[in-house]
């Protein structure tokens, strides 16, 4: 029998619209703002340098988010926990770094090898501090709840996020604290076609990209990476493979924390301001980025972080900073509508 084609449930034009939307809707959504603004710029200013500057700012800001988001998504992927404390671990990393600058005598005048060496040392310290802190939180607040209802660790995470914020508050007070500008973050490094690239931009991008490549390779290739993925997907089966699930989870928190620490340092260098509350915002953005890209997917988290960076800068520049969070979230909702499992999320067989 000839295969009858699909019964017409909808009139043809509607169907075409739907099909078009489902395949290109996402792209339309993502490009809407830049394209609209680009056209506007061409009309009013005659060139695209304003847009290009926005996008560059977005890229560097987004790189910082991406760094926070990778650590977030790693932990998220493995224990399926919305880790509200992650942002605070990142904040502590920033504080440690900012505090250490003074300790080892880095000043705005330090340059060249001294600066590089000092920063590397700080990096190690910040990563260690945040890594250990994160592992400790896991041990104290999440591990005892391994068999509890899935949402129970969410509350301990919130609890720890409060505790750490309080630590930050006691440490550096309630206002934003300006710290020394070691890398002359806002100083122009070079300028192409009216796009001004600053030291901060270069730093953020140059640190993020290698780290992302490294992490992706690590998760895909290394034994620990494999163990992490297996544990994430089915802990009992992972045990049957000879994987020590507790150790793996600890290691994941360690790595996640270390990434947060690295991000903390970059953030401190890039913004030259630290604040006890910075982790809350960063955590929320990292969560958003992780989900936008597809939970547990590292490249997705990076993509999510960058997209958020772009949206934020475009919106700050054109629409108004007070609306920026709302616009970021509106974008998120639209992306979720078109890609329910995130931009790079994997769909698995659901039926049967």
């Amino acid at each position, binding site marked *: 029998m000839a295969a009858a*084609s*699909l*019964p017409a*449930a909808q009139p043809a034009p509607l169907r075409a619209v739907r099909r078009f939307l489902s395949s290109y809707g996402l792209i339309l959504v993502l490009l809407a703002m830049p394209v609209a603004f680009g056209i506007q710029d061409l009309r009013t200013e005659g060139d695209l340098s304003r847009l290009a500057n926005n996008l560059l700012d977005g890229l560097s800001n987004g790189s910082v988010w991406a760094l926070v988001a990778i650590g977030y998504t790693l932990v998220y992927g493995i224990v399926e926990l919305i880790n509200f404390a992650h942002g605070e671990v990142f904040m502590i990393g920033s504080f440690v770094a900012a505090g250490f600058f003074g300790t080892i005598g880095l000043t705005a005048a330090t340059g060249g090898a001294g600066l590089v060496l000092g920063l590397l040392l700080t990096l190690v310290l910040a990563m260690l501090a945040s890594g250990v802190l994160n592992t400790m939180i896991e041990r104290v607040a999440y591990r005892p709840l391994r068999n509890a209802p899935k949402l129970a660790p969410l509350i301990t995470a919130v609890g720890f996020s409060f505790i750490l914020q309080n630590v930050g508050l006691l440490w550096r007070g309630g206002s934003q604290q300006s710290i020394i500008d070691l890398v002359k973050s806002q100083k122009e490094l070079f300028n192409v076609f009216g796009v001004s690239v600053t030291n901060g931009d270069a730093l953020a991008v140059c640190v993020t990209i290698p780290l992302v490549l490294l992490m992706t390779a690590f998760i895909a290739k290394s034994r620990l990476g494999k163990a992490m993925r297996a544990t994430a997907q089915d802990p009992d089966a992972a045990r049957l493979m000879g994987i020590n699930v507790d150790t793996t989870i600890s290691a994941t928190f360690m790595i996640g924390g270390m990434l947060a620490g690295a991000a903390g340092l970059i953030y401190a260098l890039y913004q030259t301001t630290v604040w006890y509350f910075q982790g809350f915002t960063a955590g929320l953005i990292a969560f958003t980025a992780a989900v936008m890209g597809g939970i547990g997917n590292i490249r997705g988290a990076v993509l999510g972080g960058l997209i958020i960076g772009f949206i934020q800068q475009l919106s700050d520049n054109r629409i108004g900073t007070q609306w920026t969070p709302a616009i970021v979230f509106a974008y998120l909702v639209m992306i979720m509508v078109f890609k329910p499992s995130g931009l790079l999320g994997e769909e698995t067989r659901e039926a049967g």
Partner: protein
Amino acid sequence: MSPEQENILEAHGVTKQFGGLTAVNDVSFAIPQGSIVSLIGPNGAGKTTFFNILTGLYKPTLGRVAFSGKNITAGRPDKIMALGVARTFQNIRLFGTMTAIENVMVGQHARMKAGLFGSIFRPPWVRGEEQRVRAKAAETLEYVGLRSGVHDQLATNLSYGDQRRVEIARALASEPRLLLLDEPTAGMNAQESESLTRFMQKLRDDFGLSILLIEHDMRVVMGVSEHVTVLDHGEKISEGEPQAVRSDPQVVEAYLGKQEAERQRAEQEGAV
């Protein structure tokens, strides 16, 4: 199968592709009213996929499905269920934190009327409905052979075999006209499989239920079905009466294996 018998389900040219893989390829198929029909084939032949198309979980790439004359292609699963098509799952999908009896009560969702306000104010008719549904669920569980002692246990706490029974009960309780069973005897021993075979026949005889069965246990397939369709690589490779299909060389080659065919033959002869 007499020609004047009405078909309760007809599928025409159903095709389903996943990316580059064609899981079901242009399969046409019919289930006569009140009959038991089996769908067999090697692993990955597309049987479960076909089920998922019939029940609305997958949208076929091509093709059309009609249930008692109504087009249900890519219809909403819950609507298809409400029309009278109930199913079980190959990988058992019970509601883990519900008790066995509650699971079966959910199966009757489409047959109940209480809405939001009915549920809140619980007028007498809603009370009556609840009682009826609960009683029916208990009865169905007994019917599939689940001891009353475990009716109030959570589904996750049941053993594999018992979970299968609850699943069948859950499907049955909705009083379907067509029952789709995906490897119902997996995880059951020979005796249990046999009683399930008899049970299917009884369902058909008592309630005029039509059954579509996916099964790898040839003893069950041979024992119960009036008609067998064989899929391989998504295509229909053979179809007909069980005996005929069983000796179809293509089926032996792709699915049964020489040894199994041999054994079947021996058994058959022994039994006669």
